[in-house]
Every structure is written in C-alpha cells, then in structure tokens.
C-alpha cells in the first residue's frame, strides 16, 4: 500500500495498492471520520484482495 506507486513498480513489487496521499496513505484529513474509516476499509480490503490473487508474469 503506497501513495507513490512509481517507486513500488520500479522496485518490482508484484502487488501494488494505491494509497490516498503521502501525507496520509490510509486516510484523508479533509473528509469526515466516518468517510475516512470507510476509505481506510476500502484500501485495506483492496490489499487483502490483492494478497489472495495470483500474480503472473506479463
């Protein structure tokens, strides 16, 4: 999970989930607490989905 995906790709990570921003990869100070929690759940869920999916060479 990162807000700087070009670096994740460059170092060869095979599962990259995009975070919100460098200042807050898993949050957002500009939205309400409830919305932020939903956003965080969303990103973490994506990461879990990514972990449980097969990776193939392209």
């Amino acid at each position, binding site marked *: 999970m990162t807000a*700087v995906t*070009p*670096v994740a790709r*460059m170092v060869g990570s095979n599962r990259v989930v995009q*975070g919100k*921003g*460098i*200042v807050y990869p898993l949050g957002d100070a500009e939205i309400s607490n409830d919305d932020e929690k939903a956003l965080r759940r969303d990103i973490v869920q994506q990461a879990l989905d990514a972990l449980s999916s097969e990776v193939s060479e392209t």
Partner: protein
Amino acid sequence: MKNLTSLITGFTKFALKPFNTRFKQLFENDPSIDRGYQVDITCVNEGGLAPMEATMELEIINHDIDNMVFGDSTVLSGKELAIDHDGLKEYLLEDRRLQDIDIQIAKPGESCRIGVVFDIIEPRAKEAGSGSDFPGLLGPFAVAGQGSTHVLRGSAVTVIDPSAVPGITSKVLEMQGEPASASPYGNLHHLVLSPKVLDDSPRHVVQNVLRMLSVKAAVYLGNAAQGKKSDQVEIYSQNENDNESREGIPRIAYIAQIHGHQMTVEEDEPILYGSNTEGMMPILLNPNEILDGALVASYWVMRVETYFYQNHPLIKELLSRHQSKEITFTGVIATVAASKETDRNRNCMLAASMAKSTLKADGVVLTKYGGGAPHVDMGETARLCEAMGMPTVVQVSDSSGDRKAESAMLFNYPEVDAVVYGGGGDTGWDVGTPERVIAGTPGVAKTLKDMKYIEGAALCGITNQQGASKIRATVY
C-alpha cells in the same frame, strides 16, 4: 501605426493610474480583510500591467555593497549602506503580531554563527514606477520580471525563526572559516532580524510574520538605491526578435518544481505571487519572473533560500546561453510535486505536454524541490518528456542516508540517463566556538555556540537541490 502606438501608451497611462489608486483603497480600507497588522503602502512601489511588449525585459541595476553600518538614516553612499536602525524597527513593528525585533549586522569573516535561519533575501527594490516589489505577496499584483530592479549586491536580509530548533533541515549561517567560503552567503553583509512574535501565536502565524518581515526589510533596504545610477547593469530577456537566425538551435525548456506537497502548505503561506500553490497545476512562467520576486521559498524548505531564486544560477545560465545562441531558452514550467497519485499523474503529464506542445521544446532540464517524493515526480516527468521525444537532464541530490548510489535513486528509467548530482548531505566541518551568536532563543544560542561539527546539510547555501553549490566532488 504611430497613432496606434500613442493610443496604447495613452491607454497605459490612463489604465495604470486608477488601477493603483483603486488598489491602495482596497488595501487600506477594506474592513473585511483583517490582516492583523498595518501595511505601509508608501514603502512599497506601485504595480503595473502585464507586459506591453511581446518580449519581457528585466534590467537589474547592481549596487555593490562592501560595508553595512547603522546610521541616522537609511542611505547608500558609495559602497556603504547605512541603515536607520530605529526607523526600520518602527516600520517592522507596525505588524501588530510582533512583540519586539532585534536587528543586528553580521559581517563576512566575523566570528559569528547565526540560526535558525528562516530565509535569506537579497535587498532589492523596483525602480519607482517600473513595477511592484514581490507582487501579490507584498506589493500590489503585477507581473514580475520587467522594468528595472535595484539590487544591493553583497548584502542580505537574514531572518531568524524564533521557534525552530537546530535540526536536519534547520539552517545555520556561519560567517567565518571554510563553511563560510563554501557558501554563497559567507561573503555577504547580513542584516539579521531576530523577531519575537506574540506569545501563543499559532505556528502558521509565526511563519507568516517571518515571511512578511523578510520581504519588507529587503525592499526597505533596496529603496536606498532608488534613483541611483550604476555601471553594473544586467539585462535579462528571452529576446527572439531574430527568429530566422535561430533555426536549428535547440529549444530548451526548464521544468522547475517550486514546492513538494508531501509537506502540506498553510492557508496563508505565500509561495508563487502570494499563492500557496495548493491545487496548482503546471504553469508557464517567464524566467525573469522567478528572478524578480514572483517566487519565494516555502515555509518548509530543504536547501533553498529566496536569495537563490533571485539569483537562480540555472536560469541565468540558460538565459546567457540563449543570448549567445547556443540554445533557445523557451521558458520555465513551474510545477509542484504531489502528495496524491492523481495529482502526480496530472502534473507530470501536463508539464511534459506543455514543454512539447506549447513551448515546442527539443530538450528539457528538470529540478526538484525537497525530498524523496519530489524526486519521484521529477523522474516521472522526465520519463514522459523522453517518451515525447525530448531528451532530458535531471538534477538529483542524495536521498539516502547510507550514501549508496542505488538507494539514492527513487526512479530508474534507462532513458533518463543524463543525471547531474547536486550534492549530498554528509559534507561537514569541525568548527570552533564563535565570539558572537545570533539566535532566536537562549537555548538555541547555547546549542549553536557549543557546536563542534556542522554538517553541510545544516548550513545555508552549502548544498542546493536546484543547482547552486560552490563545492564540487571528485571521484578518485
């Protein structure tokens, strides 16, 4: 044609006057603007319109300063600048957010250590009637980079941050020995301002006070040269009147990051023309605008001072090579490094596309602002430029603590193969105890005094990520 010219001139005179009068009224009387301090508009030169000529021309009138003293009035006589200490103090204390301000002079070669530095600015003032000082920030809005600017060369206004402590990105100014000769600031006469802001002021208020002080003092001093002649005049322009003869000369654009949004900006943080750059997309600037007060350093800085922008060596070099027709310098694309992926994609793509389609560049020079994240954005922008057929040169500095080349790189694109290394952070010097310390608090003064070793990264002007450094490394 003659009629048209006189019509335009007439219109300029007509349009300019009410514009300035209107602005003054707005500035002084609008009760909805609670600035918390008084602005002395009389000390600030008037604004102006956008350029009336297609080619922007900036005349820099240099006045060499080899001595700075306190005197009865602020006056430039020969190469000596006398400063009215009490008059300047009174002017600066008009800002009601200040409790007090200490003003001292530090000379080159003096056994003196100064810190923590908020910013260093070269004293400058627009020749009366030819533009606005720091437009949008201090003076009324105008397009910077045209008309005449008086420069007190060899001097600086240095502002101390009263609530900063010495640390990795905090700045120390050393006035003697090797660290001084390795810095562009070591041989300057510094007017050092050490302000005391009202107790319990929020951090962003303190920073805004410091920013306003810095530019006000710089213009106050610069105005001492008002109306004075000098034989050291420089003209900056991207004159392209000789269009035909420029055929075959490579067109070079400069993509410059002016902030990195991995550090959030304050609402009242002026960076570009008074804007805090939040939500900023790449914008096309004439290089003269950067040299002439459109841009100041952000509150969070890493190896950059406003003095650097005023004397931007990369821009000066590109303009000089433009004049000698080695290249055609097509302009500056100012951009910001992003915090969010969507902003990064947008900014990198638009900057590259602007270089290609608007400036029709054959090649691009890129620099970054701040730490690792801007590094990535610069690399990505360079990759896009290369993909669009524009060869690039990027300037990097060390992003790693262990000094290994591989960990210093946050991008690795085979096509981005012209990399200029702008200096690392581990150069440093053993230092003795200075006779005088100018600091924001007694605590900081003690820390500064007791220093036995100072890292280059903690000193003003030793390393600069955008191309100003006096030190060159050699690999044996």
